[in-house]
């Protein structure tokens, strides 16, 4: 069998196992629901219709997926290069803060404002990530722990900035809305003018879509996924980063500067998560607010990456899947009164199964052993 075929075979079996994990996750969710006295079939059909039955629902799934795809890419990139970026959460916060400040407090012409905001978010998130890389390269601080600390530092820094009297809005702990020149929502102004309202009445599907803050972020997220794939597979930088990820010793032996690579890798991770935060502000929230708890875009990125098995293109699909769960899931609470946290149980179970790629082979060998043992003991009789 040639390499390509082998590669394809692995890929297909990985995909099968992913679907198996998702199935088990949903099954466990159904069992928990049933035990708590809810009808799981009813719950899942509410979720499904809450995801697909209206154009605006689908639009919301896409909007939910945008930051998740990018934070997923951030974590997947770190895994591919031998690191574990738990810090996407903090990098996301810093990116969104940068975008909100540039978008809300800087006057720039349209067409320049948006790129400057996005670049600002990417740069800020990137530096936040690179700092963890620096701590690892220079002081040998495990990035898992430093990024966790930096998540909380980013969290409180965000709250510090948005509560400054010179920045906050009157009476609320939020930043000013970003300028119209910085928005990436589709036709935000036109939407509500009279001509548009007449047009929307004539086209109910478009009307429904325009009710949502549908924005250009998803396109950027998808393009970024392909760029990351290209970077990893087709460039010498991507190659050297992956070699460091595979085996530090052999990378050093081959003359690759491991420390520099760690910093670059964390820089790119941070840039991706920062972009996620920036697009979220430009496309959807239009400001940042004082946080009471982590919003989990970064943490969910870890799950997105794991379900995608660190494939950049896979992150697009797993990001969409995750968005469906987090958008459609809570609808069972209003409809059935069933706790929305069932979604966390489903996701946790999926991840638990993703963690055990050897599950089936181990089960098989155990099963075989029992058969052999029983045969042997029968033979003894």
């Amino acid at each position, binding site marked *: 069998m040639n390499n390509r075929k082998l590669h394809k075979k692995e890929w297909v079996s990985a995909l099968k196992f992913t679907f198996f994990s998702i199935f088990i996750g949903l099954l466990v969710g159904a069992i*928990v629901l049933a035990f*708590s006295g809810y009808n799981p079939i009813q719950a899942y059909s509410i979720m499904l219709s809450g995801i697909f039955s209206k154009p605006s629902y689908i639009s919301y799934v896409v909007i939910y997926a945008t930051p998740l795809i990018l934070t997923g890419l951030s974590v997947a990139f770190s895994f591919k290069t031998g690191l*574990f970026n738990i810090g996407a959460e903090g990098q996301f916060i810093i990116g969104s803060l940068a975008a909100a400040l540039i978008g809300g407090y800087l006057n720039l012409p349209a067409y320049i404002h948006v790129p400057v905001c996005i670049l600002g978010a990417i740069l800020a998130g990137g530096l936040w990530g690179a700092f963890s890389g620096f*701590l690892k390269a220079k*002081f*040998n*601080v*495990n990035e*898992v*722990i*430093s990024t*966790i*600390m*930096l*998540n*909380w*530092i980013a969290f*409180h*820094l965000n*709250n*510090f900035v948005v*509560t400054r009297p010179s920045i906050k809005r009157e009476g609320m702990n939020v930043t000013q809305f970003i300028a119209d020149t910085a928005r990436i929502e589709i036709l935000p102004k036109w939407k509500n003018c009279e001509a548009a309202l007449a047009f929307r009445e004539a086209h109910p599907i478009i009307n429904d879509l325009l009710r949502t803050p549908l924005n250009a972020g998803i396109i950027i997220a998808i393009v970024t996924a392909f760029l990351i794939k290209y970077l990893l597979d087709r460039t010498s930088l991507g190659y050297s980063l992956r070699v460091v990820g595979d085996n530090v010793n052999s990378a050093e032996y081959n003359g690759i500067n491991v420390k520099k690579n760690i910093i670059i890798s964390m820089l790119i991770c941070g840039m991706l998560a920062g972009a996620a935060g920036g697009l979220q502000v430009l496309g959807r929230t239009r400001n940042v607010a004082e946080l*009471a*708890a*982590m919003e989990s875009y970064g943490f969910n990125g*870890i*799950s997105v990456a*794991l379900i995608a098995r660190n494939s950049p293109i896979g992150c697009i699909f797993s990001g969409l899947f995750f968005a469906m769960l987090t958008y459609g899931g809570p609808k069972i609470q209003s409809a059935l*009164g069933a*706790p929305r*946290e*069932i*979604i*966390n*149980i489903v*996701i*946790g*179970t999926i*991840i*638990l199964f*993703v*963690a*055990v790629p*050897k*599950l089936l082979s*181990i089960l098989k060998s155990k099963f075989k052993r029992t058969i052999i043992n029983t045969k042997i003991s029968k033979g003894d009789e």
Partner: protein
Amino acid sequence: MDIFAFVLSTTFMYSAPLIFTALGGVLSEKGGVVNIGLEGMMYFGAFMGAAIAYYSGNPWIGFLAAGIGGGLLALLHAVACVTFKANNTISGLAINFIGPGFALFLSRIMFDGATYTLPLADKKMGMPLKGFFMKDSFLDNLLGSQCHTTFIAFLLVPVVWFILQKTRLGLRIRAIGEYPKAADTLGINVAKIQYFVVIAGGVLAGFGGATLSIAVSSAFNPTIVTGQGFIALSAIVFGKWKPQGALVACLIFGFSTAIGIVLGWSSVQAVFPVPSQILAMLPFVISLVILVSFVGKSVAPSSVGIPYEKDN
């Protein structure tokens, strides 16, 4: 109350949940299994402790239930990591979804749709030395208001140290964490001992969570744990995978929280106005600084996080 006693007593109070959890992590990692799921176990423990204490009317039953809850989640982690050779970190991450997921799910069912439990009031964990010392003496200020859990946490440090360093079981645990193959060759049941340390670690993390919800505070709410499991995780690294080291690290975290509280007093703010957000950031900044200055000398058990596979 004199400020020195206040800072010390607050330090002890806030260290206790971290000490339980960090000791659990030390046990688990000494035996070769990384446990990033401590946060989720703590979270579930915090809920179980408060909920069961509320319904049973007895904080000790709540405390025990929290241990069982943490242990059950740890059992899941052990099945994945030991039996099915899972990637320890990913499995731990899954626990961090499943623990809070079940906690909030059950909370909504048991507390009429709410994600917080009802206050325990007089069913809170008791204070054994209350009124034992002369009122407002230094010792009274320091120890009088400490709950049972604080004393248990501190007592557990030498207990875990003793088990790890002075018993046959401890020797086996350490051998497995360093070189499981050698331990296996000597006839030690690697899987059995790893199950033991992971579950024991989960029980302790559950206790840690309950300490938050029934001793430090008197109810469970969704933000009660917020990263403390992860702080305990870094305490393990600071503490160089030793119980006494983890204790010191937890005390440093508790101390920085206490300092934050004192700096937040209105009398202090009048002279030295530090924004509350910066105070909240302090424990994390301090721990990062300590990490940078100490961690270089910290060495993990050499086989930690690598699932052990027997050759057949």
